[in-house]
């Protein structure tokens, strides 16, 4: 496991502050970071090093908690503790605020674009998840306000190919939503975690969902369609989700983020014990009861809590991470021999 995760470089992305989140653009050429200094920075390579290509310093009054690129790569959404979500349009190295989405009662915790690029989801400490629709004229309208969670909603993520939305909450559950007639409804609740669920990631096929929690475990959930061979019961025409694997005993603190590489299938976690871990599914594991092995464990990846890990969508093995120490680090992951 030694050398399976190698440091490529570090940048002081948000000095004297926390760096909360990272997002690679769809082309894999730019990395957006956001932090407690209320700024968003865009990083790109110049030779062997990473340099800051743009800074967005106006726009938010408080911490920027998450950023997300649109599927076309021309827009960046930023979710902030100031209860707003800004949509930025990229014009080479410049970013212009196209619109500000308001409506949440308090801190917006996450924002995510649907694969179609027409829908956006946001979630907040006000316990709600909002679905927004954007039209050709860059007008955003609220399509649905979902109040299924009973506590702060930490994260939202879209299925890689379907219009299915997942959310993670302080209420220890994961909820899934889909469109029904002219509104959105909660079609599944995944229970099992014993504490706050901090983040979610779908696998490349979209058949499985990974969740990470304050209970120091990672859970893998699998989708079972009605009439499935395994005899998993479904209600009506909605698929069921069952927890098929729990990774426990690997993390000594809260797991704040999880990322599932869409190219290689490797799972990376960001932990409150300052470490980064990578897991891979064992080659011959049973799809209904998969097993994962720890293939990389980097202690002291940062000097404080690791808040986010993000796999580059085009370059296999390229991983970015960020921390409460304000730094962004770049890593090269190589699957260890003999595993």
């Amino acid at each position, binding site marked *: 496991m030694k050398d399976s995760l190698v440091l490529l470089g570090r940048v002081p992305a948000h000095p004297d502050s926390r760096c909360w989140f990272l997002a690679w653009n769809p082309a894999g050429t730019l990395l957006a970071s956001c932090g407690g200094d209320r700024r968003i920075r865009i990083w790109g390579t110049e030779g062997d090093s990473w340099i800051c290509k743009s800074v967005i310093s106006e726009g938010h009054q408080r911490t920027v908690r998450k950023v997300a690129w649109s599927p076309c790569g021309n827009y960046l959404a930023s979710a902030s503790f100031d209860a707003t979500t800004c949509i930025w349009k990229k014009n080479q190295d410049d970013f212009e605020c196209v619109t500000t989405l308001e409506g949440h009662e308090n801190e917006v915790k996450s924002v995510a674009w649907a694969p179609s690029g027409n829908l956006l989801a946001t979630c907040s400490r006000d316990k709600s998840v909002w679905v927004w629709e954007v039209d050709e004229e860059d007008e955003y309208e609220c*399509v*649905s306000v979902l109040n299924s969670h009973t506590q702060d909603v930490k994260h939202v993520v879209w299925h890689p190919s379907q219009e299915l939305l997942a959310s993670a909450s302080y209420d220890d559950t994961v909820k899934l939503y889909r469109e029904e007639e002219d509104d959105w409804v909660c079609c599944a609740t995944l229970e099992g975690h014993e504490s706050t669920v901090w983040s979610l990631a779908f696998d490349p096929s979209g058949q499985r969902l990974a969740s990470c929690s304050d209970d120091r475990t990672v859970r893998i959930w699998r989708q079972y369609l009605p009439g499935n061979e395994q005899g998993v019961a479904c209600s009506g025409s909605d698929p069921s989700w069952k927890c098929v694997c729990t990774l426990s005993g690997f993390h000594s603190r809260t797991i704040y983020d999880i990322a599932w590489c869409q190219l290689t299938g490797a799972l990376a976690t960001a932990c409150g014990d300052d470490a980064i871990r990578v897991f891979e599914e064992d080659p011959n594991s049973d799809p209904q009861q998969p097993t994962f092995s720890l293939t990389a464990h980097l202690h002291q990846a940062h000097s404080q809590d690791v808040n986010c890990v993000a796999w580059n969508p085009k370059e296999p093995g390229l991983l970015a991470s960020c921390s409460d120490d304000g730094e962004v680090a770049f890593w090269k992951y190589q699957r260890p021999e003999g595993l």
Partner: protein
Amino acid sequence: MASPFSGALQLTDLNDFIGPSQECIKPVNVEKRLGSGVAKIRIEDDGSYFQVNQDGGTRRLEKAKVSLNDCLACSGCVTSAETVLITQQSHEELKKVLDANRAAAPGQQRLVVVSVSPQSRASLAARFQLNPTDTARKLTTFFKKIGVHFVFDTAFSRNFSLLESQREFVRRFRGQALPVLASACPGWICYAEKTHGSFILPHISTARSPQQVMGSLVKDFFAQKQHLTPDKVYHVTVMPCYDKKLEASRPDFFNQEHQTRDVDCVLTTGEVFKLLEEEGVSLPDLEPAPLDSLCSGASAEEPTSHRGGGSGGYLEHVFRHAARELFGIQVAEVTYKPLRNKDFQEVTLEREGQVLLHFAMAYGFRNIQNLVQRLKRGRCPYHYVEVMACPSGGSREGQHTRALPGTRAVGHRPAGWEWEEVGHGRLVTSLLPVVRRLGQGTCCDPCVPSALP
């Protein structure tokens, strides 16, 4: 238990336990007395607090109180305001008042009046499979049986509310003070006040809601006829929604002179149903009683009903009146065009390709959001919007009793509602000055927030 209040209210922290960053913003008025520095506090056995001065003298300390209304106006504090509200206005409370009446000396009794909304009546009718008239009559029997003195129908007061809305719209259209946003839904008003204050409130209609018009009619007009002061009347309304309890407890509707509210207690349809159950009464089995009327001449036989959205048809009434008054056009059929979803629809009046009137109905929180945002950006194309906090505009099953399995549920537009020209002709117009007088000082200035219904 899921909160029974509308989504708009729930999202405005009405029942949220305070997060560490929030503070009680309501200053508590405390009489400051001059004193010299330090004093001790002693707690008696009964839990009361006494301040012991340095010279040995004691003074009983008052508990710092934050009233229910303070809480409701604020964004969440230590008290769980919703549950307090529900206990203060419940069928239990009504029973207490009725029991107190039975035990009281003749001169000390209060006149108990119940005003039933058409939506609640329709819901109970569907639940018990009766027609609306029979339901109204049997409800009259039931309420009188338990000690209520008069039972009215608020469709009567809705006429006033609609008339006032119609006139106000025409006035504002001519004065270019648009758009006008309807205000009969207290959930929407509460949300608008708390979150968007300054730029929304000036647009809100100043016409009082049917519930509050009824409050004025009962406590002032009717009480006078009965030779009673307003505080001697206990007025109960039966409404389809919990948010109406909030509306009744607004300080705008508190009569300072007589220290009484225009509406003392709001019961939801569900609570009336519970009351029937607790009294062991089967509504269909009761003998129908003659209907009461607020004043002679008002046709008391058939409770008047209105076509239109589940909230009472504001949009349609105002639209038709405006078309007639402003453009001399008689509208036969009002056609709704659904937009983004079925709770957001628009209505247009066109002549020779030109749009004369552009109205919309926006129900439910998501549509309110979009409306508010458009207004904020100055991109609201509508002249009038009927806004309701709940999807389906308050006619949904949510707060009503549920129809029995296999029976027809009360749908988006309740069955059995017929069109009836607003106005019992001269009666309504002659009573309007009475209502205006009753509402004097609160209905004049469209920009004064306290003029909200």
